[in-house]
């Protein structure tokens, strides 16, 4: 397994690592994020007000610094989860995650983007709102 710290760059065609990186077996990598070990794929996304928003299908990463900025989600009202549309949800500052669910503040749903191109703007708006700014 590669940890985030071992990755030097994420390009459009390849993930780059320094030549001297030693890969570890996944079994030996310390798990840090609760029961799911940080694996959120297929988790249900639920607001803190008890409404299911959808299911996590992917994680959106800022290729500049490797940080997670959000999640790709199949909306709960999407009839065909394999072929259906995707939405993008900014990463909440707070909210627990388990192998079962990802909790997001109800306000985060207002910043869902329907395409990845517009997602960066949605993330910025959401972060502004969290800092007390306006949308």
């Amino acid at each position, binding site marked *: 397994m590669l940890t985030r710290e071992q990755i030097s760059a994420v390009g459009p065609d390849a993930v780059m690592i320094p030549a001297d990186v030693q890969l570890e077996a996944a079994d030996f990598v310390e798990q840090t994020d*609760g029961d799911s070990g940080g694996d959120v794929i297929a988790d249900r996304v639920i607001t803190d007000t008890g409404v299911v928003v959808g299911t996590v299908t992917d994680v959106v990463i800022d290729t500049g610094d490797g940080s997670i900025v959000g999640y790709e989600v199949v909306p709960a009202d999407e009839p065909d989860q394999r072929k259906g549309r995707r939405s993008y949800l900014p990463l909440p500052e707070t909210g627990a995650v388990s192998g079962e669910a990802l909790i997001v503040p109800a306000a985060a749903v207002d910043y869902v983007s329907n395409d990845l191109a517009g997602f960066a703007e949605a993330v910025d708006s959401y972060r502004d709102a969290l800092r007390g700014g306006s949308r």
Partner: protein
Amino acid sequence: MNVSELLGKPVLDLSTATTVGRIDDVVLDVPGRRLHGLRVGKSTGAGEWLAWDDIKAVGSDAVTIDAVDRVGAIPAELPGCWLRGDKALGGRVLSDGGRELGSLTDIDLDAESGALQSVVLGDRRLEADSVQGIGTYATVVRDPADR
């Protein structure tokens, strides 16, 4: 929010993102005209009781709480009967004049405050202030004018 919608809903602990059980019964405080608390079936908490005041939100898909320790032992004394366990839901509805009006199909509550809004008898709905009591034998309401 109807009581029938509440029953079966999962209780979600927001601190761990895990389900701690499912709502399987409800107690109303009829004199106070509000929901008093809920029983959490298959609870992973210390007991099966969740007081209404300890709930963070009631959503369309889950009841949320901020920590599993909100679920504790069922109080020795409750202000009313269990709506499902004591068969108040589905049971007879009597007027305070002793007339049988039908059976109690559902109870409508305000999802924000837990306030009793109305009782449902099939396609009829009687306002909360007409409810005199909800017990194991019958629900008693003030005799409606439209006989």
